[in-house]
């Protein structure tokens, strides 16, 4: 831990950052009460702005559901898909939302194993984001199916026609990977919440209290309970970590296992994972910067925390930039005409404007985060995070559409149709995500109260 002298110096240009919540040396017991009051205070009766935000989110969600209903009624032609672009906005949205989910697990599980201090400001929000994003992502293969009611055909169940799924197909790997990811993330989220639910049940009354009592399973905090709990948390973090890498690798293999130029390339797995963490960090910033202001949690989520997250974003943007450059370079290094034609089409073809915007948002703009002042400016981070979200959505869109619309045979080249239904459903997915997130903010504690208490208790011992 840092000595007092180092802490006082921390305002200077040294790279040392400290994530202390409250600089005063006060009694930990009052801090415990304070953090409970602050975080649970966020769960009080909502104000008008909350209801307005919820209304907007639910309206978007409603529009999405209406569009989906229309699509089921009319047919898949309304989605803008055609031949050759058989995968269009729904798969873009699927990969986008699964990607967003990954950052949550990174912050919760991977940073836990690395003992990174800045994690505690974000981990509860990030875990909630993961669970909600995976739920949103999971809808898209169903939307894309057309005949949604047959979705269970993707599951290997014994049936009287003796049919089994094709385990050699990346789409089935997706089913297993995304289901596993959802289950493990939900379990991890719930386990992390257990002590905090016990705190919540103490501070509310009536029917709310009964709900928290049941959800907290009668947790007390005895010695044996804590021992098993810490072991479980460690194991779940250890299980979630390979999931961060493997699930988005499996999703990337939906594309890499094909032979389409621009899709069939070995680097897709780590490239997509880095992109996922990149877009997820941006979404965490988009969510927590306003949340911190509205819920008055400024002392728990400090500029140091945001700077650390901005650094992770910068690092992953560099990996994504490397992958862009490497793919391009390799295409021209080799003599493969199709690869070269594909990358020329990306840069100069029908989708060049989204492509250039994507390069700006994902490669050039994050480079400004090398400047420390900008990393600590929350308004700037908010703008960057929004543009990164746009850029990463466009990246998936570009990969999918340019790959399909311009592959081997010029006779079958073609662009997808503009589809308001697809746009509506995409909007609906954002609506669904924000609806559930707003509900989470009011129903569950947005910060990991028990972990913050632990951190404070350790600080006062070692300082």
């Amino acid at each position, binding site marked *: 831990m840092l000595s007092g002298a180092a802490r006082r110096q921390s305002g200077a240009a040294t790279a040392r950052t400290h994530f202390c919540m409250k600089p005063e040396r006060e*009694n*930990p*017991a009052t801090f*415990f*009460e304070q953090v*409970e009051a602050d975080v649970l205070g966020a769960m009080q009766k909502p104000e008008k702005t909350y209801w307005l935000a919820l209304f907007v989110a639910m309206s978007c969600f409603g529009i999405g559901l209406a569009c989906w209903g229309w699509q089921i009624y009319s047919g898949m032609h309304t989605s803008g898909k055609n031949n050759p672009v058989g995968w269009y906005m729904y798969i873009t949205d699927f990969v986008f939302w699964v990607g967003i989910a990954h950052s949550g697990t990174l912050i919760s599980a991977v940073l836990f194993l690395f003992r990174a201090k800045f994690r505690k400001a974000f981990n509860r929000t990030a875990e909630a984001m993961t669970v909600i994003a995976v739920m949103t992502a999971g809808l898209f293969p169903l939307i894309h199916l057309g005949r949604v009611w047959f979705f269970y055909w993707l599951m*290997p169940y014994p049936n009287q026609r*003796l*049919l*089994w*799924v*094709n*385990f*050699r*197909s990346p789409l*089935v*790997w997706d089913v*297993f*990977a995304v*289901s*596993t990811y959802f*289950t*493990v993330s939900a*379990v991890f989220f719930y*386990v992390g919440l257990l*002590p905090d639910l*016990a705190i919540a*049940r*103490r501070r509310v009354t009536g029917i709310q209290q009964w709900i928290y*009592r*049941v959800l*907290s*399973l*009668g*947790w*007390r*905090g*005895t*010695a*044996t*309970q*804590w*021992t*098993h*709990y*810490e*072991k*479980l948390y460690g*194991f*779940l973090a250890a*299980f*979630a970590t*390979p*999931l961060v890498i*493997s699930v988005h690798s*499996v999703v990337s293999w939906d594309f890499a296992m094909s032979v389409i130029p621009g899709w069939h390339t070995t680097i897709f797995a780590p490239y997509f994972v880095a992109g996922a963490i990149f877009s997820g960090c941006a979404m965490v910033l988009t969510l927590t910067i306003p949340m911190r202001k509205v819920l008055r949690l400024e002392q728990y989520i400090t500029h140091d925390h945001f700077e650390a997250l901005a650094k992770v974003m910068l690092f992953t943007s560099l990996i994504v930039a490397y992958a862009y450059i490497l793919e391009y370079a390799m295409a021209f290094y080799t003599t493969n005409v199709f690869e070269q034609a594909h990358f020329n089409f990306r840069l100069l073809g029908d989708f060049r404007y989204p492509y250039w915007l994507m390069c700006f948002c994902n490669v050039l703009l994050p480079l400004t985060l090398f400047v420390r002042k900008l990393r600590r400016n929350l308004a700037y981070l908010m703008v960057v995070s929004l543009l990164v979200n746009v850029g990463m959505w466009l990246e998936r869109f570009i990969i999918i559409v340019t790959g399909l619309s311009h592959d081997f045979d010029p006779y079958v080249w073609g662009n997808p149709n503009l589809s308001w239904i697809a746009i509506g459903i995409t909007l609906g997915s954002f609506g669904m995500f924000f609806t559930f997130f707003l509900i989470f903010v009011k129903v569950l504690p947005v910060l990991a109260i*028990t972990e913050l*208490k*632990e951190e404070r*208790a350790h600080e006062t011992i070692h300082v």
Partner: protein
Amino acid sequence: MKRFTFDDKDAFLAKLKELLASGVPARRIQIVTPIPVHEALHMLKVPASPLKFFTFTGALTGFVAGFALTIYTSLSWPLITSGKPIVAIPPYMIIAFELTILLGALASLIGFLHLNRLPSIPHILNPDETGNQYVIFVEEDQ
């Protein structure tokens, strides 16, 4: 049942030390704390958690089940798809890997609930809230 309540962790630890030094056996002492207190767990000689056996069993089951499911089903309905072998190990490794993690995590959760006897109906119905205080319960000598 004697009950000692403390707001301060150091006072709590001091009392615990005093109780153990005065000959009270650790098995008659129960502590309830808002955060895990490792010094206290060490003093009470709480045994290491056997959770890893649940985890390992679950993970191993998942691994075997992954290969069993994929190999059995592909042999049961042998269709050649994209020129791949009927029993294609590289893709099946992915399924086995995912199931390893899934069953490992679920087994850990079940093990945790079992070891802690959760959900605990008496405590759901009537929680003995200790709040942010560190509490020592000492069972009476029979």
